[in-house]
């Protein structure tokens, strides 16, 4: 019985890392420019598809393909913020939100045209390997997910804390007007922040694709997942996002274990509701 439970417990925690990483980009953009990027899930899936294309056409390993996808996404994020969102910010708060819906639709349809609506998965020589810890066998990919998420989150945290640019991002998120007053060009900061978030979406996409199957319409589910993780973790708290991701992961695997896989999402969102009822501003609020 105990060894039965050990598997969903460990898997849940490892999966939680991936969920936290999926939410990280959404949280970053919201924290700095108060914009809910409704295309976030689609950015992630686009990255999954790009890795899929590169591995099926050129035999690139999915994780190695990040060397190309991350810079590509970073550049794409810069262009989107610079030429679309920054201009829309001058009009109203809703305008950029609507633009992100537009981007979401464009990505979804592009993926459908190029790769068909079929479900895909990223494969690699390590995709099916397992890792033995005592009595349980854990898929290696889950460990990679967790490790990648941990590295990404720690790197982001150090960047925000230690560098001038990172501190400027933090300052802009805490008080935009004061940031302008000390000479921070916030529109430039926004461009960089959005690029950073799409870069993280690129990493999330590859690891998500290695773990689960995906189709052009999967982005919506990822957005809902990320949204849930972010609001439960408390906006702007990195540790909160991480723990909230773990709660999500555990609720999925344990919910699946006790109630069957059909009830997984139900369990997850009931837990979100309960936590938000007790702590309306999230688990970790600053």
């Amino acid at each position, binding site marked *: 019985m105990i060894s039965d439970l050990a598997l969903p417990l460990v898997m849940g925690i490892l999966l939680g890392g991936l969920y936290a990483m999926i939410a990280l980009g959404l949280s970053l953009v919201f924290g700095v420019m108060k914009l809910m990027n409704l295309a976030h899930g689609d950015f992630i899936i686009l990255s999954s598809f790009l890795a899929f294309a590169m591995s099926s056409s050129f035999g690139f390993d999915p994780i190695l393909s990040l060397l190309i996808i991350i810079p590509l996404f970073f550049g794409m994020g810069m262009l989107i913020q610079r030429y679309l969102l920054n201009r829309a910010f001058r009009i109203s708060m809703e305008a950029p939100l609507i633009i992100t819906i537009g981007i979401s639709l464009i990505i979804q349809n592009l993926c459908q045209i190029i790769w068909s609506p079929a479900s895909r998965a990223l494969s690699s020589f390590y995709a099916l390997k397992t890792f033995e810890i005592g009595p349980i066998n854990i898929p290696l990919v889950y460990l990679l997910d967790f490790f990648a998420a941990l590295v990404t989150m720690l790197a982001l945290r150090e960047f925000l804390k230690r560098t*001038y640019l990172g*501190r*400027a991002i*933090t*300052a802009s998120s*805490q*008080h935009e*007007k*004061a*940031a*302008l*007053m*000390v*000479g*921070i*060009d*916030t529109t430039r900061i926004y461009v960089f922040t959005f690029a950073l978030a799409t870069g993280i979406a690129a990493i999330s996409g590859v690891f998500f694709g290695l773990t689960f199957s995906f189709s052009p319409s999967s982005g919506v589910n990822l957005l809902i997942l990320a949204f849930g993780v972010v609001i439960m973790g408390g906006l702007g708290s990195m540790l909160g996002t991480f723990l909230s991701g773990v709660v999500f992961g555990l609720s999925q695997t344990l919910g699946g274990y006790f109630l069957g896989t059909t009830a997984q999402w139900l369990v997850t969102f009931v837990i979100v509701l309960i936590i938000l009822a007790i702590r309306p501003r999230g688990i970790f609020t*600053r």
Partner: protein
Amino acid sequence: MDKPLLKVNNIDVFHETFQALWDVSLVVNADEIVCLGGANASGKSSLLQAVSGFLRPARGNIEFDGQEISRLTPPQIVSLGLSQVPEGRQVFPDMTVLENLIMGSYNRRARTKRKEMLKVVYELFPILEEREKQVAKTLSGGEQQMLAIGRGLMASPKLLLLDEMSLGLAPIVVNEIYKVLSEIHSRGISILFVEENLKRSFQHAKRAYILKTGRVVLKGNIAELQEEEELKRAYFGIAQS
């Protein structure tokens, strides 16, 4: 000595459709300490915001250090050496005192002088050094005001704009902060400060401009102004004919 550092020339400023300033002109000379007075909603903050680039004048222009600045953005203006301390102590709430100060020297010109300016700020406000590691939002109101001023100084400005400081602070604390103001001035930094309290403005400034409903109604040396009967009217709106 009368070299103009800041020149505001006949500006009109609007908040959307509401006209906040009408044909306002103002000069701050190098090495001067000038007070901007006037009752609530007389346009003092609008004037500061126009100077620091947050509002764009519809008419007229603003020159700083011989350069036209009315079309520049706030960050560009800061990097020229014009630093603003906002009202209501708008510090970065979740950053430490030191981090707040470091952010003050964000612009490239100030970065090279960071260590030097930090020393100056700590000399002026020793309490900030003591609380270096403390998160800004846990400071008292007076300490936050000192932090806001310190942050403004970290930009190593030629001119420091200080919006209303006495809001919500105990008079003793305000007096303490004003004492530091003259020390800052003695280090060769010009100051333009907003103050509703007449007595304080007279104590600390050499010249003053008094605004009323968006127009300059009085200006000149403090000594002369003190005698002006009209001053009362500008402040309190009391009609004494």
